[in-house]
């Protein structure tokens, strides 16, 4: 850590690094914002394939009244079935901003995927990934920084894309293995949420380090290149 704080000269960033950094930063923040609004419609998390207001939650997030809606009536039972499932009608209107939030999430998702592919292709071709990010000693970033960058760029972010795809009805019809990998639709949703928490933690840490080690200098380096 001290290594990073004392880092004398920031990286000189190539143009392609600067462009993809800001495109990725913009899309990830937009994904986080719209994703949070999507979550607000149903801030309950589950494990497995199924979860809804009539089944127990793994985690209820008290973000608004939607996490525990009380108004249900006209319960129907399906007695002929062994586990006697029920149905009930919701009688209150919930907070739901999923129309625009979902469309914005996917618009940002496309920008993220294109910018991420661009970054990955250039990062490998120019050996930037090996030289500056891969966890090894030497160069201008500390080992801890390298671990953080590598695990977010090549672990967490691709994981988020896959967990997101595992919630898509059309994609899992084509690739049902995604449901098996994540343990079901609701597990994928829960893991997608924890991935969001991890990304926000990384962004907070990243921005804190930038501020602590010379905000102006780092911003100049990432905007004009030196």
């Amino acid at each position, binding site marked *: 850590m001290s290594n990073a704080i004392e880092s004398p000269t920031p990286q000189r960033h190539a143009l392609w690094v600067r462009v993809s950094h800001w495109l990725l930063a913009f899309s990830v923040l937009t994904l986080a914002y719209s994703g949070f609004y999507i979550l607000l419609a149903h801030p309950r998390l589950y494990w497995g394939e199924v979860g*809804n207001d009539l089944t127990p939650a793994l985690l209820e997030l008290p973000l608004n009244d939607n996490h525990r809606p009380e108004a249900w009536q*006209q319960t129907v039972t399906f007695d002929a079935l062994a*586990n006697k499932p029920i149905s009930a009608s*919701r009688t209150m209107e919930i907070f739901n*901003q999923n129309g*625009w939030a*979902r469309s914005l999430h996917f618009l940002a998702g496309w920008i993220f995927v294109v910018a991420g592919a661009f970054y990955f292709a250039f990062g490998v071709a120019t050996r930037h990934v090996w030289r500056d990010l891969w966890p090894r000693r030497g160069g201008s970033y500390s080992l801890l920084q390298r671990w953080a960058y590598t695990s977010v760029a090549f672990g967490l972010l691709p994981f988020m894309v896959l967990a997101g795809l595992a919630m898509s009805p*059309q994609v899992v*019809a084509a690739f*049902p293995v995604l449901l098996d990998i994540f343990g079901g639709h609701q597990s994928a949703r829960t893991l997608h949420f924890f991935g969001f928490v991890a990304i926000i933690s990384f962004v907070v840490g990243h921005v804190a380090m930038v501020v602590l080690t010379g905000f102006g200098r780092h911003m100049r380096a990432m905007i004009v290149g030196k």
Partner: protein
Amino acid sequence: MRMNKRFTTRRAVMKGLASSAAITLAGCSASEPPTYGNVLRMGDWLTYNAHRLLLPRHSLAREYDLRDISAAPAIGTTDPSDPSQGGFVQEFAEDYARFLHEGFGDWRLTVEGSVANPSSFSLEDLKRMRSRTQITRHACEEGWSAIMQWTGVPLRAVLEAAGVRSDARFVQFHCYDAFVDGIDMLDALHPQTILAYGMNGRDLPIAHGAPLRVRVETQLGYKSMKFLRGLVVTSEFDDNGPYGMIQNGWSWYAGI
């Protein structure tokens, strides 16, 4: 499930930004969904076209066992004849209340548009056609899911009975809760796209769309429209005016 009618400042700002940007998609003709010169719709358009281009056609959604059937909320309109509910329209409500009273004996599903024989089918007619029973997962856009068993007639069988013309590209669903929405012919002819009259081994309950609802297993729950009145087969994309879900900011394509 249904749209939220409260119009927030944020959404107003978004719409303003979208229209002032006046971005239109190259190659997005009037017959191509979605038709909106709206920034937010660009991602929907990309997702729809990427799915149609890249994904294998007619892969089956996973089907489950009887023991996997779960509790299932009924949301949106749960009785079209109830004036307190969203989607209430006096004319439809009166018809629906009458059908309900008579056990749907007089109810008909009309099929019109780009078909050789515009027709109407009673519930008995539909039950005499070939049937399909499937236990599938309903994924609601809100974020929850439920597994239920559905029994119905494949939409393909109904379209074949009416003789779909070669220019047909979309199937629009008109419902007693006044909503109208549609799917493209690929999803319409999908083997798991059925018009369901049975749920979990019994007649479709009112709250779940009696007497007949759509099941589109390759899209989010809001495309599985309830309380069917009629089908219209079209050759052009139609946003269904004020009754279309897309007018309220909901993506036309929900295979996401």
